[in-house]
């Protein structure tokens, strides 16, 4: 039986009267690309923040990399990478300085940082931009760089929150190639998106509607169940039930 690296059992987050995440349960296997789909405001980001130890769950249980989200949230942080919706590299530091900084605060050695930086610059064809401030890079490059920084310390799991928002189709393609590479090297990828073509690239997807998980399976199985030709149709059929507005 494959190793379960993320488990959630009736995980819930309430903000006052508002239930952002309503008793969601799922499991993610090691090395899997797990798509976390939902309309804006469906609760994807909140769920992900709970798993990353950024947000305290109201109730339910969850483990990430074998650690409990309530007690061992700091241990979880050693084992995950995270790329938030907001671009969060330091734009007044250079490409190289950002890698050095994030590698450093994860406790990596100077030699590790040096080798890994050279490797990433080569992979992204950014050698010439190594000493350029991140602020002056085009958005697509920034996103790819942010992903590389999120997995710089070679975590077991990486959480990506709408990583391809606002990025052109070519760059999105390249971005997904990077995700596949990470997955091939054994990193579990937990990714939220609302691009349905991207959902097709995932091993399994869950679709969140109004804070609940309405469907969870492989893209193929979901299409079959809902008699749809594409994930887009599956999503529209499910999302139509949503009562919550945008936001």
């Amino acid at each position, binding site marked *: 039986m494959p190793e379960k690296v993320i488990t959630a059992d009736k995980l819930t987050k309430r903000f006052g009267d508002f239930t952002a995440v309503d008793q969601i349960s799922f499991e993610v296997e090691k090395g899997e690309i797990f798509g976390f789909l939902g309309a804006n405001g469906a609760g994807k980001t909140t769920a992900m923040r709970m798993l990353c130890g950024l947000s*305290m769950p109201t109730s339910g249980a969850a483990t990430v990399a074998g650690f409990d989200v309530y007690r061992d949230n700091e241990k979880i942080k050693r084992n995950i990478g995270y790329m938030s919706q907001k*671009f*969060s*590299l*330091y734009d*007044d*530091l250079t490409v190289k300085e950002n890698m050095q900084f994030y590698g*450093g*605060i994860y*406790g990596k050695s100077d030699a590790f940082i040096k080798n890994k930086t050279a490797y990433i610059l080569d992979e992204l064809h950014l050698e010439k931009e190594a000493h350029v401030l991140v602020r002056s890079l085009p958005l697509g490059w920034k996103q790819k760089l942010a992903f590389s920084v999120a997995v710089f310390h070679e975590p077991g799991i990486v959480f990506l929150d709408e990583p391809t928002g606002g990025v052109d189709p070519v760059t999105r393609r390249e971005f997904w190639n990077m995700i596949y590479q990470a997955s091939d090297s054994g990193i579990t990828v937990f990714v939220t998106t609302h691009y349905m073509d991207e959902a097709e690239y995932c091993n399994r997807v869950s679709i969140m509607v109004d804070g609940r998980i309405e469907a969870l399976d492989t893209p193929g199985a979901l299409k079959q169940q809902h008699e749809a030709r594409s994930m887009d149709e599956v999503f529209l059929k499910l999302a139509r039930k949503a009562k919550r507005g945008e936001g």
Partner: protein
Amino acid sequence: MRTLKFLLQKEFRQIFRDPAILRMILIMPVIQLMVLPWAADYEVKNIKLSVVDNDRSEYSRKLIHKITSSGYFSLAGYSNSYSSALADVDQDRTDLILQIPPHFEKDLVRENKAVLYLALNAINGVKANLGGAYLNSIIRDYNREVRAEWIQFPRFSAETQINITSSNWYNPGMNYKYFMVPGILVILLTMVGANLAALNIIKEKEIGTIEQINVTPVKKYHFILGKLIPFWILGLVVLTLGLTISRLVYGIIPAGSFTTIYVFAALYLLAVLGLGLLLSTFASSQQQAMLISFFIMMIFILLGGLYTSIDSMPAWAQVITKFNPVSYFIDVMRMVVLKGSSLADIRGHLLAMAGFAVFFNGWAVISYRKRS
């Protein structure tokens, strides 16, 4: 330790790349210290005086001459109608009216007594009060001269005269700049300490990088130290700059030792940085933080004893100044710079400041959370 090194390296790189911060720590202190002490002076000069002279005698002219030659007054009007002088007050062209009644000379010479009437424009209370007091003393002087001229010398003076000779300890020339410059330096340090660190953290909140830090294993105290240390050093740089300017421009050489000043300043910066950190945990935008800090700074400055003496505040306000770190530092600066106080003399202040530092930083550490 290694984590801290990376945090500090990052912070310093960002500081040296930010022209706004460099301007704030280099140019702001220079300008404030070069300009403010010249303007923030308690001495009242250029008091506009209108004289209503209904006598127009030799004695009245002598009196007016004596007043205008004192250097504190400028003659704004000379008329013989009180109502026209009052109109000048209405127009704010005059601060003081001195009315010399008719027969002033005659009364003075013949009856040996005369009456003068003084009206003050009390909109600017300080100016009116001090102006009135100056004028009184000039007239008293004048009075003595007239008596000396007219009264034949008896063997013993009929009037007992007490002459007061005073000497001003610690600030012999009563130089206001000696008093103001150290105080202004304190305010500068407070602004740098409390604002820069707070704005820096809130900026990370706004951009979202703080969340990225929060998903790393960086410990809370590492993060806070990583923010405290750079701005603590910057504060000491500003202090050094300020002390250099006080020496070069105003010739102020502390009577006490620099060590005393730096030891206290180091502790003081820790306290105000703690206040800044605390501010940053509560404010969610830079505007919000600026408004709160503006409000706090107003209270700190007005109840800090920079412009007004704490001893003459009402009792309740004096109690408030006990909770104001600025008042301690201003006090210490004046004690050390003017009086030459040593570390032992200011140990009470040091203890209080240590209390502030522990309180603010402790509260900040408790309210900073990596998880919401």
